């Protein structure tokens, strides 16, 4: 066992994520694995991950309102925040991907048959890299709520899907951000699948006057916290 370098360790999160089987969300019943998950030791494959940077992000990819000839319908908003790890360290240069419905609550996706209009000026997909302070920033329009077939008169609260890589396979996270004071949240089986109310509320962005741009767009802030690494690393593998 040689040397200086110590490998990071990512403590397993407890009581944060929703249980895979959450029967109120119908689609989990035939898809959530039923056998207990086995423990995968954190070796090199798990503590490394794709560092996807330049070449993946075009100059307008962060601005979902400027990807077509005209401007999309809806309330223009800015959504920004920092990607951090559990230790409060910024995660710079990491890819953030988003997708969402348009202002009418319709996705530009062939599978979405909701009887609401598509917007020829809105695709609803974006990506950016975090800056040196771990900050991401998107300009978009506020997504609409939409009905789904989970239960009678079911409506999804307005949300934006987020995909995060961090720096390690262990940190990969896909989640959704919601808007504060949405009356649909308490009846949403996805949001409510998170058992801890405090953890749930961490998926709410908050309105910020500082981020709001005069005569232009409302600003919302949402920080994202990915796993680890713990402050007590373990030893590296032999270099053989």
């Amino acid at each position, binding site marked *: 066992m040689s*040397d200086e*370098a110590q*490998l990071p360790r*990512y403590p397993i999160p407890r009581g*944060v994520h*929703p*249980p*895979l089987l959450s029967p109120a*969300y119908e689609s*989990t*019943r*035939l*898809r*959530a*694995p*039923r*056998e207990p*998950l*086995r*423990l*995968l*030791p954190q070796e*090199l*494959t798990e503590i*490394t*991950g*794709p*560092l996807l940077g330049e070449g993946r992000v075009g100059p307008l990819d962060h601005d979902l309102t400027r990807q077509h000839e005209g401007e999309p319908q809806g309330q223009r908003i800015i959504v920004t925040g920092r990607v951090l*790890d*559990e230790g*409060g360290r910024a995660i710079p240069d990491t890819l953030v*991907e988003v*997708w969402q419905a348009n202002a009418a609550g319709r*996705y530009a*996706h062939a*599978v979405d048959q909701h009887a609401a209009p598509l917007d020829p000026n809105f*695709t*609803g997909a974006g990506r950016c890299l975090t800056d040196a302070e771990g900050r991401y920033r998107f300009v978009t329009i506020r997504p609409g709520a939409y009905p789904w077939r989970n239960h009678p008169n079911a409506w999804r609260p307005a949300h934006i*899907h987020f995909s995060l890589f961090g*720096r*390690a*396979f262990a940190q*990969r996270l*896909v*989640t*959704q951000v919601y808007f504060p004071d949405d009356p649909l949240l308490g009846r949403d089986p996805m*949001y409510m*699948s*998170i058992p801890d109310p405090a*953890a749930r509320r*961490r*998926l709410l962005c908050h309105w910020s006057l500082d981020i709001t741009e005069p005569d232009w767009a409302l600003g919302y802030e949402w920080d994202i*916290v*990915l*796993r680890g690494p713990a402050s007590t690393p*373990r030893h*590296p*593998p*032999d*270099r053989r």
Partner: protein
Amino acid sequence: MTLPLTPSQTAGPFLTLGLTWSDGPNVVPDGTPGAIRISGQVLDGAGAAVIDAIVETWQADPDGRFAHPDDPRGSSRSAFRGFGRCATDDEGVFTIVTVKPGSLPAGDGRVEAPHIDVSVFARGLLDRVVTRIYFPDEVDANAVDPVLMTLADTDRATLVALPDGGNLRFDIHLQGDHGTVFFEL
């Protein structure tokens, strides 16, 4: 200082809108010497094809190394992407094009057999599910792999890809008697 984690949510049925890359399935470019195609069908507990999933892969290079600051050995192949992603088609099938990774040193001095880490995202999965692909021509290495050794034979078999012509087949059964082994990490 410890910050509370951001919880996971499902990627939902429209995930391809945000997570599709035209070169996603190409861990290595087509025509790379030694390239193999790994294909598989994702199936639910009723045996129905999961036609709205995205399968992502992450792996070491052919030397068993990563061009990543947390691999203390580094890599001489900095252009090796190591990452693949592919949406399932209308039969629930994904395909990636890659090369076999090398064996990897484990923390306790043992050696991990060549493997690919896999994440599956889909409607109905409130968090990704994680599994591993092992290689059928690595019988000796698989026999002493620290992860495979902990599993019963029937469970092990769910993690070893099947030869399929010159390519490999790796089906993912989310549930059922022959359900794929999934991991917490």
